[in-house]
């Protein structure tokens, strides 16, 4: 069981500062997602926790034990890599057994554990195949199998779904969430996809340029973004950010309104503009609107919503759903 604590952890490569110094507390059994645009340092952070990279400063501890200098194998963590990193010359069974073999476990016990993991992950029929004979999703499961047999104190996932196609990704997302429900082990999951973050996490850590922008539950981040970066990053379609007189009327430099919180009225509203392209998804309609002062907004209407290109519309934000930000981009509460 493990709580992971980072205190003032920093990382430089030569003169390039990736992480300037960061604190983070991960509680035992939590599913934490590191999310951020590429190059934000989220994978580096994960590799620091794994022990695959040395920290340049600060300390990492697991359950109160300082592991800053501990080699990766002795941190009790298992990792699932983006490329799965399966051993191509070993069968699926041997891949899953490898960490147990390295730990010096006896053969009968290894066999039992491998069978158990294979059963959980629907891999029993594939144990004798080589990784190259498997589909992407199966390879992913082998990588997970290799991680769970060790019964680690925590799992680290490095963008594990980015090599899968969209349909499979949704499936694997559910499987990983299900696994977390069963094992109740700490999991740290890195992704650049905010949908993955929102659907899986107990706690999301939004990273930008090596700094933590906000930590919170998916709903907290959605409802109360701390700053413009988080506001723009979480939610799909993106939050509309409006500046100018409308913002000033609300006592802010910038106001944010999520597309789903805009009411469309042909007869007028607090904001007025001209309808552009409408995207009809069936369940929803996304309407792109150009305001009279030139700013663009997206509004989301439930179900089918007909609006002609070029038609005049009025928009009114739902009460209490307005996000206000000051000149530094921080939320005004």
């Amino acid at each position, binding site marked *: 069981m493990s709580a992971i604590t980072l205190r003032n952890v920093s990382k430089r490569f030569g003169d390039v500062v990736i992480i300037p110094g960061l604190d983070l507390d991960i509680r035992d059994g939590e599913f934490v997602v590191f999310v951020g645009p590429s190059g934000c340092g989220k994978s580096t952070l994960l590799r620091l926790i*794994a022990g*695959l990279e040395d920290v340049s400063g600060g300390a990492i501890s697991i359950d109160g034990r300082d592991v800053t200098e501990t*080699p*990766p*194998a*002795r941190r009790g*963590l*298992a*990792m699932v*890599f*983006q*490329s799965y*990193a*399966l*051993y*191509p*010359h*070993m069968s699926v069974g041997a891949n899953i057994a*490898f*960490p147990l073999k*390295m*730990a010096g476990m006896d053969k009968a016990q290894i066999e039992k554990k491998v069978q158990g993991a294979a059963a959980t992950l629907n891999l029993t029929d594939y144990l004798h195949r080589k990784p190259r004979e498997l589909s992407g999703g199966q390879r992913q499961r082998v990588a997970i199998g*290799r991680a769970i047999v*060790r019964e680690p104190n925590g799992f680290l996932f490095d963008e594990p779904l980015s090599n899968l196609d969209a349909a499979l990704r949704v499936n694997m997302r559910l499987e990983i969430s299900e696994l977390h429900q069963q094992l109740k082990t700490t999991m740290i999951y890195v992704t650049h996809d905010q949908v993955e973050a929102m659907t899986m996490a107990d706690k999301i850590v939004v990273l930008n340029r090596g700094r933590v922008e906000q930590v919170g539950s998916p709903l907290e981040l959605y409802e109360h973004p701390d700053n413009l970066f988080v506001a723009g990053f979480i939610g799909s379609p993106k939050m509309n950010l409006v500046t100018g007189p409308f913002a000033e009327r609300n006592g802010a430099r910038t106001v944010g309104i999520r597309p789903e919180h805009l009411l469309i009225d042909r007869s007028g509203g607090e904001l007025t503009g001209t309808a552009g392209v409408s995207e009809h998804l069936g369940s929803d309609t996304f309407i792109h609107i150009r305001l009279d002062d030139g700013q663009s907004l997206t509004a989301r209407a439930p179900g089918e919503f007909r609006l002609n290109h070029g038609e005049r519309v009025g928009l009114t934000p739902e009460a209490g759903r307005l996000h206000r930000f000051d000149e530094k981009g921080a939320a005004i509460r």
Partner: protein
Amino acid sequence: MARGISPTRKIGMTVLAWAVGFLIFFPILWTVLTSFKTELDAIAIPPKFLVFDWTTENYAAIQEQRNYFSFLMNSIYLSLGSTALGLLIAIPAAWAMAFSPTKRTKDVLLWMLSTKMMPAVGALVPITILFRNFGLLDSRIGLIVILCLINLPIIVWMLYTYFKEIPGEILEAARMDGASLVKEITQVLTPMALPGIASTILLNVILAWNEAFWTLLLTTTNAAPLSAFIASFSSPQGNFYAKLSAASTLAIAPILIIGWFSQKQLVRGLTFGAVK
């Protein structure tokens, strides 16, 4: 080749290409043919191409007369020994350079390449004297070390280019799984790089087998390999052509076959990975 090629052109090219191939291969073909002739047929005028009394007496004679077997064994010892020693030194070095590179890695590699350019005669005098003083002249072990050293840069380079193609994440996975450094190299890296290691072995065996500077200058009988054995045919004038051919055929056959199998990897090895 998106377009169709006219049949006449293809046939013309076929004739030309086969003619060139035949011409280049001819000395080898002639040697093999001569090795099955009697000594008289071997120097017949005009030469006999295929119609002669085929005989294997030369092969029998070679193996009896000139203790051919001990030369053969030396060739095997020297090429396998120097290759094994080379791999032992080169695999860890190539691992380090491929997976834990520093700013200087490239310089180290180029420096290794440059040791290959040191002319052998620059080292000949002291090596001869050291070998004389330490009783290493005409010893297999001394020659194994020398052959290993002259081919070490090639082995390191070749392994390095093969290792570079293995994703580092797999080695990191092994590290996470609790593999020690030795196990990471022996149980994960080596089996994965096996095809590359195999072609490195083949190339090095070829180079060591055919080496004919140090082997000629540092051996007389005990450690002399086949290249020295063949050279001994050059001394008495009025050679026995058929026997010379038989000995030559025996000396080149194994390497020719290995070489033909490893031709693709050869390009990469001999160009230090610059051409693939």
